[in-house]
């Protein structure tokens, strides 16, 4: 069996009296596409935050390729190969798209500390930024500020930022949220086209997108895993239908 890219042991996050994540355990194999689904408030985003280090879990363990990263800061986890996008678009609005990507490129390098040389002097950064923009369908927009492009384009930028930190495991928090059907299709094609040396964990509400991309699906409800299985198994499961549509 392939090495687990990610392993979560009994992870819990309690806010006051509310257990948003209530003892979740997960194993994700290297190269797998795993989709997390669940109704609003199931704890999906909180689980993501705890895995990537945005939040500290109350208890439990996070292992990245067998290494315990539970106590590491977010930037250290990024250096070890975690990359993420945010549910609520989180790009640098005042900076140009090329500058946005330059930050993602140097963020995991020592060059981020350089202060005696302009960013523009690094040809490789510029080339990489332009290539990356082209890959997510933003060619020709490099020198526009992020606040001047459309919402859908900012979602594309969001994905490009995460991809430029050289992630081994990529966490996508509703990459298609708020997009038009055409844009949604474009993003899901992009995700489907990612190389298999990147493991992908994705939260997605759109069942067509979710079940189309997933190798395996984990269903979360009230902070717990209620089912894990192939897309077909999840589609056929009565409990999932109950959670989503209520009892008949």
């Amino acid at each position, binding site marked *: 069996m392939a090495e687990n890219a990610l392993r979560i042991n009994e992870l819990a996050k309690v806010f006051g009296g509310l257990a948003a994540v209530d003892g979740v355990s997960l194993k994700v194999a290297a190269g797998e596409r795993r989709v997390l689904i669940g109704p609003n408030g199931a704890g999906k985003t909180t689980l993501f935050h705890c895995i990537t280090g945005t939040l500290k879990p109350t208890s439990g363990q996070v292992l990245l390729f067998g290494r315990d990263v539970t106590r590491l800061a977010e*930037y250290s986890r990024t*250096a070890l190969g975690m990359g993420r996008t945010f549910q609520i678009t989180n790009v*640098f609005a005042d900076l140009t798209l090329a500058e946005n990507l330059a930050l*993602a490129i140097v*963020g995991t390098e020592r060059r981020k500390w350089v*202060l005696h*040389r302009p*960013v523009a002097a690094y040809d490789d950064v510029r080339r990489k930024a332009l290539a990356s923009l082209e890959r997510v369908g933003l060619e020709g927009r490099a020198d526009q500020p992020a606040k001047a492009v459309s919402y859908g384009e900012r979602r594309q930028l969001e994905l490009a*930022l995460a991809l430029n930190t050289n992630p081994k495991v990529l966490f996508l928090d509703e990459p298609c949220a708020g997009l038009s059907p055409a844009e949604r299709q474009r993003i899901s094609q992009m995700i489907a086209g990612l190389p298999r040396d990147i493991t992908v964990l994705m939260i997605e509400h759109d069942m067509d997108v979710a079940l189309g991309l997933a190798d395996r699906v984990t269903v979360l409800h009230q902070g717990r895993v209620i089912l894990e299985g192939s897309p077909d198994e999840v589609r056929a499961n009565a409990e999932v239908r109950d959670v989503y549509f209520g009892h008949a």
Partner: protein
Amino acid sequence: MDRTRAVFAALALAAALALPFTAGPFWTGLVTQMYIFGLLALSVDLLLGHAGLFSLTHASFFAVSAYTVAILQVRYNVPTALAAPAGILAGTLLALLFGLAVRTRGVYFILITIAFGYVVWGVAHRWSSFTGGDNGVTNVPFPAIGPVAITSHTQYYYVVLVAVILCGLGYRVFMRSPFGLGLRGIKASESRMQSLGFRTSAHLYAAFVLSGALASFAGVLYVYYNKFVNPVAASFPVSVEAALMAIVGGTGTIIGPFLGAAVVLGLRNWVSSFFEMHHAIMGAVFIATVLWAPLGLVGIAGRIRARLRKARHG
């Protein structure tokens, strides 16, 4: 566009070089102060305009550096070649300590820097056996490095001019560097920066120390111009005015803090000659800036340019 800029820069440089010959010593002195306080404002703006941190303790680095130079030169006869670097070093060491304030953000950062500023002012004011108390340290000579000695305020004007131009050029590279871009990234979204692999607190700490070093350099230039230093240099109003200059001129730019220094110092000199409550005028200017020109004079210039371009192209 670049050509207009080059012409503008050349004209400004020519005017700056000719100033001591065309204007009297009063104006030369005022413009020297404008350069020095503009540099202090630039150091404040390194944090304010790029990283989004509002520091109100920059008078501390300015004054500690000025006191160090004054005490070394006057009491111990240390030559400028050692005293000036020692001043920058002392201010920078203090910035290494005060930089711990970057563990906080927003209003807490402002409050903690105000507290730091008062500590330094208190020491300067109360530890009179060492600092000279209210009188401070007087009779600071003009700088002299080896055989090159400055003997007049006119000569010193050129020293400050060269220093400011070099700082401005260095600052320009810094602004565009990966490190400088990182600061703007933190200002825009710190959470995103962390997820991209930046240790944002370390980044801000480094910026704080750098900013403190620049303020310390301004302090060195100040003490050789002023010839004395007293606790006023370390006082809260100096920190506030430096931030005010950056905001009135335009944050996030190089020229802005210097324009702001010109406005603040110019107004103060002019208004105080006929109106006792000149501080009230400064307050009004500040309020007007925040309300109608939050990007300062540089922002106003940009708006005028945009309007002209629109008119030209119909």
